């Protein structure tokens, strides 16, 4: 049996709202293993991004247990959670979140600078990552000079460059047309298969859903359904 990369038990997340509280996630129990290509699917407000943020240690649950790569999210201090993110997790955002004043090369290089990888090795890794996403001809371009699809491919390269254990992708195709969406999904699928990187998406885009091999449906903050899929590839 595969070892769980993510273990979530009886997790609840509440937010203060006015004088009371709003429950965003409730009774969440999930395991995610290495190499999975899974998606959190559901309508807006169902808690997909909240769950993704907690798994990425950007937020903390109110109740229950969340373990990512053997680390209890609640017990991580600022340094510990930053270390978990910098070493083991890659993020892909709906709005790409590239650093605007950096070139494509510098954006992809950034996570490696945090890991203090020496210059020559860093260069090799950046070039490899840019080859995966077919952007070696845009090294010096700034994000503002790229199309949406190219920006998202840079974001994928940035998330993948350090070969993380887990990539969290929040609505990665929401701002892309169909052709670009399929392009980046095929890229991620390929990376998942080649590098055994675990991908967890948050999406309600059918184009993404058809690539998933596991679909976890959230509705009103609860897991409504958890099903295995075949995926397009």
């Amino acid at each position: 049996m595969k070892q769980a990369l993510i273990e979530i038990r009886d997790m609840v997340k509440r937010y203060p709202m006015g004088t009371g509280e709003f429950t965003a996630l409730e009774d969440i129990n999930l395991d995610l293993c290495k190499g999975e290509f899974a998606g959190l699917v559901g309508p807006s407000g169902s808690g997909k991004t909240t769950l993704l943020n907690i798994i990425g240690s950007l937020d903390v649950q109110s109740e229950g247990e969340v373990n990512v790569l053997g680390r209890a999210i609640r017990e991580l201090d600022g340094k510990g959670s930053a270390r978990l993110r910098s070493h083991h997790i890659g993020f892909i955002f709906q709005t790409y979140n590239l650093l605007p004043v950096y070139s494509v090369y510098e954006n992809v290089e950034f996570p490696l600078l945090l890991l203090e990888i020496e210059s020559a090795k860093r260069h090799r890794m950046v070039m490899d990552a840019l080859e995966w996403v077919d952007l070696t001809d845009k090294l010096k371009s700034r994000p503002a000079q790229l199309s949406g699809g190219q920006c998202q491919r840079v974001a994928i390269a940035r998330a993948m460059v350090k070969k993380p254990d887990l990539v969290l992708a929040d609505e990665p195709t929401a701002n892309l047309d169909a052709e670009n969406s399929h392009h980046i999904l095929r890229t991620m699928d390929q990376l998942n298969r080649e590098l055994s990187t675990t991908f967890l998406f948050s999406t309600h885009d059918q184009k993404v859903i058809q690539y998933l091999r596991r679909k976890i449906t959230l509705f009103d903050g609860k897991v409504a359904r958890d099903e295995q899929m075949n995926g397009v590839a």
Partner: protein
Amino acid sequence: MITKLAFRNIRGAGLRTWINVFILSIVYVTIIWFEGLYCGWVNQAENDMIDWEIGGGQVVVAGYDRFDPFSWDDAHAPLPASVEQLRVDGQAAAILVSSGVVYPQGRRQSVLLKGIDTRQRVLAIPTDSMAVTDGKVPIVLGQRMAHSLDVQQGDSFTMKWRTAGGAFDAGDVTVACIMRTTVPAVDTGQIWLSLEDLQRMKELPGEATYAVLAIKSEEPTTPDNWRWEDTDFLLSNLRAIMKSEAAGEYIIFAMLLFMAMIAIFDTQVLSLFHRRREMGTLLALGLTRRQLIRLFTLEGVLHAVLAIVMAAAWGTPLLWYFGTEGWKLPEFYDEYGMAGMSGTLIFDYSVGLVVRTIILVVFITTVVSWWPTRRIARLKPTDALRGKLS
């Protein structure tokens, strides 16, 4: 790593960076320029006072107080033997002081008479000019005094003085020379004449009120009725005045720094506002809050560091010009009666001054850059990623 990122960020900020850097470079150059002016002025004032008034120290007869006119007529004695020897050797200039009254063009004005060795080379007073002229006593005036009396070189007028015996006597004097000096203490209200003439007029042969010694003179042995005043003591009043003048300089520095710091503070606050999403991204990528604070603070500090380079590029020729060619002061500065403030003022910059200025600007920039970033400590990454500041 943070330094590298900070460099990339401020380089990427383009024009905004260069505007801040330029403003800070103006602050550096202006502070150093003003300090150079001030130090140059202090140096010039001290050197002029040494050249014209105090030499290498003074031996003063007991009872003489340069600020008390009632002491002027009674404070005199024969010079101590040791000082007399220095005088003979050309290492001291004897001066006799007396009160007097002059009547130029029918007007009356109280003056301080100073008789000085005509052969002396210790002070810059043009004593050579005090040659005998047509039976009238030759005198030397500073240009402010000449202006005050409304007399020209060659003019004559009546002068009255009190002899040692208490009797009043009078005679005509001729303006032999009008000297140009920046030292008011040898000009305003004073008339210089030869020591022999004043000793004769006062009936005090061989007596003096004080003697000015040549520069680098040792303290001579003197009897109890004479006291030694060294250059530090004699310059103390000037230094106190200069210190009070420096307060004005500091206000200008503070205003300049304040304007530059507003620019840095404004940039930092705007950065925090505009770059919320970027901060969220950086946290998501694995930067800690502390690293993020360091990054933003360092970006501010790097403005000050780059400004050093820019200030060196355009400021060095300017400062060098004022340090070598000096600043030719307008004629009307003579009227101010401020020691050292005349002619060409050579600016004086020390390494200490430059280092002090750099440390001051970098330190204040660091504080101003860090202050707004404290908000990052409360930043929630999830809010920042959505473009909110928590």
